[in-house]
C-alpha cells in the first residue's frame, strides 16, 4: 500500500463579542436581560472578591491566594451554562465558577485562611473542593461524569484547569478515559498564557490546546475566553453534548491579569506592554460596553450592582473572620477517618491533654 493520508483534523474557534465590540448577532445566545445582568453581576462580584482577598492577604488576614482577575468571562460564562444538578470540578483559581455554583465568598476566604472548613462543600452544591496539585482533578471530573452515566442521569461535570496542567500525564489520562467511557464531562482549559512564569511556548509545541482532545478521540474547540457570550455559547453546546455522553475539551483563550498567586511577582517574567494590551481586552469592560449598547445597563444599574456587591462582600468577610475565631485544631484528628484507629485516638487524647507525660506514646 502506498503512503496516503488517513486522517485529518481541524479545530474551530468561536467569538461572539469581539475585542472591538463588534457582535456576531447570529451567535448571540438566547439569554434574557435578567440573565445577562446576572452574568455581569457575578463577574463583578468575583473581581471584587479577588481584589479584596489580595488586600486581606497583604494585611496578613489570609494566606496565599490565586486570583482569577481577567478570567471571569471564561469561568462565569461556562458555569452559567450548567444546570443546578451539574458538577463543578475546580483547580485552585476557580472562585468565579464556584460563586456561580452557589459557593459563598466566606468559604473561599476560609480556604485562603488555611481552614479545611473552606473545602467543605455544602450538601447539594455539586462541586468538589479546590485541587492544589496541578492537573489532578480532571480525572475526578471524568469519574463524576462516568458515575452519573452509570446511574442513568444526564448530569455533567465541568472541570477547569490551566494551560500548564495540559502537560501533566493525569490530564491526558482524563481525556482518554472520558472518550472510552463516554463520560458526561466537559473540560475547560483556561489558557491564560502562563504557568507561573512559564510561557505557553515553553509548555508545549502544540498549536492549540484544544487539539489535545483529538488524540483522545473527543471533540476539541477553542473560544475567546474574554468573551462571556462566546464562552457561554460554546459551553452550553458542549454541556448538551456531554449529557449524551460526548465529552468536549474547550480551550478558552484568556489572560491572567494579576499575579499567579499573592506570593508571585509577574514583573520578573512578563512585560507591562503585554499586560496593558490585555487590560484593554478585559472581559468585564467588554461585556459592560455590550450591555450598555443593548440598553440594559446604565450608570444607575452599575451603581446599584456595585453597592449590592460591596454590602454582600462586607458581610461575607465578617462571617469569614468570625469563623476563623472558632477553629478547633482537634478537627484534624476527627476527619482523617470515619472510624478513628485506636492509635490515632491515643494521639488525639495526648494532643487534647497538651502532650502530658506518657501522652505521646501510642503503641
Amino acid at each position, binding site marked *: 500500500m502506498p503512503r496516503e493520508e488517513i486522517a485529518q483534523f481541524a479545530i474551530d474557534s468561536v467569538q461572539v463579542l469581539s475585542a472591538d465590540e463588534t457582535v456576531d448577532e447570529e451567535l448571540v445566545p438566547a439569554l434574557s436581560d435578567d440573565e445577562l445582568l446576572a452574568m455581569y453581576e457575578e463577574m463583578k462580584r468575583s473581581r471584587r472578591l479577588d481584589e479584596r482577598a489580595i488586600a486581606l492577604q497583604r494585611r496578613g488576614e489570609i*494566606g496565599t491566594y490565586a486570583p482569577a482577575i481577567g478570567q471571569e468571562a471564561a469561568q462565569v460564562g461556562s458555569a452559567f451554562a450548567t444546570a443546578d444538578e451539574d458538577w463543578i470540578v475546580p483547580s485552585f483559581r476557580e472562585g468565579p465558577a464556584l460563586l456561580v455554583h452557589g459557593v459563598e465568598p466566606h468559604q473561599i476566604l476560609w480556604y485562603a485562611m488555611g481552614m479545611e472548613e473552606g473545602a467543605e462543600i455544602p450538601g447539594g452544591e455539586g462541586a468538589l473542593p479546590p485541587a*492544589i496539585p496541578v492537573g489532578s482533578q480532571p480525572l475526578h471530573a471524568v469519574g463524576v461524569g462516568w458515575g452519573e452515566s452509570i446511574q442513568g442521569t444526564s448530569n455533567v461535570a465541568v472541570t477547569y484547569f490551566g494551560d500548564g*496542567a495540559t*502537560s*501533566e500525564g493525569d490530564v491526558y489520562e482524563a481525556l482518554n478515559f472520558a472518550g472510552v467511557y463516554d463520560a458526561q464531562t466537559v473540560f475547560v482549559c483556561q489558557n491564560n498564557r502562563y504557568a507561573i512564569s*512559564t510561557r505557553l511556548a515553553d509548555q508545549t509545541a502544540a498549536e492549540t490546546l484544544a487539539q489535545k482532545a483529538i488524540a483522545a478521540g473527543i471533540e476539541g474547540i477553542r473560544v475567546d475566553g474574554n468573551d462571556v457570550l462566546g464562552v457561554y455559547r460554546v459551553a452550553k453546546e458542549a454541556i448538551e453534548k456531554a449529557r449524551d455522553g460526548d465529552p468536549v475539551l474547550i480551550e478558552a483563550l484568556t489572560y491572567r491579569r494579576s499575579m499567579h498567586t499573592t506570593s508571585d511577582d509577574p514583573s520578573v517574567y512578563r512585560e507591562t506592554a503585554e499586560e496593558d494590551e490585555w487590560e484593554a481586552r478585559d472581559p468585564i469592560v467588554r461585556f459592560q460596553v455590550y450591555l450598555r449598547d443593548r440598553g440594559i445597563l446604565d450608570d444607575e444599574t452599575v451603581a446599584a450592582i456595585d453597592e449590592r456587591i460591596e454590602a454582600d462582600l462586607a458581610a461575607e468577610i465578617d462571617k469569614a473572620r468570625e469563623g476563623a475565631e472558632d477553629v478547633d485544631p482537634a478537627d*484534624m484528628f476527627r476527619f482523617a477517618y470515619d472510624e478513628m484507629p485506636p492509635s490515632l485516638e491515643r494521639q488525639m487524647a495526648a*494532643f487534647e491533654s497538651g502532650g502530658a507525660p506518657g501522652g505521646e506514646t501510642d503503641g
Partner: protein
Amino acid sequence: MAEQLRMVEAVRETLRAELDRDDSVVVYGQDVARAGGVFRATEGLLDDYPDRVFDAPVAEAGIVGTGVGLAATGLRPVPEIQFQSFLYQGFQQLAQHVARIRSRTRGTVTCPMTIRTPYGGGIHALELHSESFEAGFAHVPGLKVVVPSSPAETTGLLTTAIRHPDPVVFMEPTRLYRAFREEVPDDHEIPLGEARLATEGDDVTVVAWGSMLRETLDAVEDVDASVEVVDPRTVYPLDTATIVDSVQKTGRCVVVHEAPRTGGMAGEITARVNEEAFLHLEAPVERVTGYDVPVPMFAREDDYVPDTDRIAAGVRRALEF
C-alpha cells in the same frame, strides 16, 4: 573565601559551582530558568549557563523520568521539584526506574541524578505544600535521601549529592531557606551517611534533622540536663553507628520528626537502637512526631508540627522514665 549565606543562597551557589566545574551538570524544573525558581534558588543561573538551565513543563513524571535518559547519555541531571508533594506525581518514575536502573542493568546504566525539593511545614503555605515524606523515599531501595539543616551543611551535602554516582532525593526544609545566615566554606563535601553531633551531652540523645534540628536545639536549651543532639544529615543511608554510640553513652533516646508517626523514620531508628544498644537503654525510645493525619492547612498547622514544647516534653519523659 568563606561567605555568610542563607540556605537558599547556599543552594544557588552550590549549583553555580557545580555547573561551573562540570559540563555534564544540567539544572531544570518548573520556573527554574527565567524566573529563577519560586524560592529564587536558581536565580541567575540561566544567564551564566543558558545551555544547561531549563524551564520544564508542569509535569513531574516527565521531569523525573527524563532524568533517567539524560543520565544515560552521560549528563548529571539536577532537577527541582517545586514542592515535595508534587514529587508524588513523579514517584512512579522514581520507584520504578530511577531507583532500579543500576541494579536492573547490573551497573551498566546508572542515574546520578539529584532531585532537589523543598519540604515541610512552618511557612503557612498552601494545602499540600508542607509534607515530609522522607521515610517514603528512604523505603525505596536504590535511592539516597539527604536533608540539610543549615546553609553550610547544604553546600557540603548538595556538592556531594551532585557528584554522587547514585540518585539522591535532596530535601530542603522550606522554613530554613531564609531563616538565618551562616559562614559557608567553599567547595567542601560532606560524605553521605555520616551523622554529626550538633551538641554533645551525657544524659539523653536526641536525633533530629532538617527544620526539626533547629527546633530541637531551641527546645533542649530549656531542659535541665546534658543533651546530645545528633543530626543524621542523610536519612538514607542512616549513620547507625553515631546514633548507637551516642545512645550507649547516654542511655536514652528521643527521635523528632514532623512526618506522621506511623511508618516514619523514628520507627526505623528505634529498631536500630533496640538491635544495637538495647542493654544500654534506661528508657524506651521516645518519639516526638507529627500525627497520623494529613498535614492540616495552616490554620491548624502549628498544632501539627512538633514545637519546642512538645520536643522538650518528650526529652523530659525520656529523662524521667
